[in-house]
């Protein structure tokens, strides 16, 4: 590992670090809203990693002009534009589900939700009709 390698890759590593912060928030925090925020962090970090692949040294934004000849790759931008908009749609769906869960259970904490489910269906029983 040389300094040159580290200098060329440190952006990717920090994006991966940000992804892992989001991933940890998703799996280690029990509050459903916090989980969705973590998912958003993960998602935005993936976008940044993807966009950083398209950068060209000395390039400019991909808008045609007589004064420039070197442009940054437009393709990652296009794909990530689509991904951002799809991301907000899925986040909205997730938040709607959180609102419904809160109304049905009265809580959005994962452990309390699991406990409530176990009260209805104790261990060893798969449905309310089974005898233990």
């Amino acid at each position, binding site marked *: 590992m040389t300094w040159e*390698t580290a200098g*060329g890759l*440190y*952006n*990717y590593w*920090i994006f*991966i*670090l*940000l992804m*892992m*912060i989001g*991933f*940890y*928030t998703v*799996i280690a*925090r*029990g*509050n459903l*809203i916090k989980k*969705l*925020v973590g998912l*958003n*962090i993960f998602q*935005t970090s993936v*976008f*940044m990693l993807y*966009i950083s*692949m*398209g*950068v*060209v*040294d000395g*390039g*400019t*934004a*991909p*808008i045609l*002009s007589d004064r420039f000849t070197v442009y*940054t*790759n*437009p*393709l990652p931008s*296009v794909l*990530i*534009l*689509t991904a*951002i*908009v*799809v991301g*907000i*749609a899925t986040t909205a*769906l997730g*938040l*709607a*589900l*959180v*609102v*419904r869960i809160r*109304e049905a259970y009265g809580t959005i904490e994962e452990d*309390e939700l699991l406990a409530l489910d176990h009260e209805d269906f104790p261990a060893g029983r798969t449905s309310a009709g089974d005898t233990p």
Partner: protein
Amino acid sequence: MIGSILTEHLIDIGLLAFLAATGLMMLHQRSLFAVVMLSGIFSLLSAGLFTLMDAVDVAFTEASVGAGISTVLFLGTLALTGAREKRRTIWDLPALATVVVFGALLMWGTLDLPHYGDPTAPIHHHVADRYIEESGTEVGPPNIVTSVLASYRGFDTLGETTVIFTAGLSVVVLLARRRRPAARPPRDASPDAGAS
């Protein structure tokens, strides 16, 4: 020239440091209102980074959708569900181990990637050349991203609108029957429930 490259790197490192600090604050903070605000800040910082990486269309969309609409949606949900997270253990060790192993694998995977800003990377030499050289005459608009989004990859955008339509429809279906169950007392309270 050297000065501008140095400035660009300093801004890059500064934004990355702020992003990491915001991310860790979000993990640590238990007031969900603060978490949502920090998530808006995170999106805005990432929009700054997108501008630095010459993806201006993405920066604009991220600032309006990620920092704007997303924050509004989260705040609306907080108003309906409550803004406090339950106290829990600081570090969840199995989760931490999973995250560290996964992150290390991803970093190992980056080792043979082309370096940041490398103009000889393969990603720049397939369809990208065609888009940059021909889109001005083939499609028209000076903004290449617009040409690709609306013309070369038009079906992709059509698919995107389908996804948004489906998600919007699902949100309406989920929230339309919101008021009814809350008005009734819980069903388990009646004496004959569970007797069968």
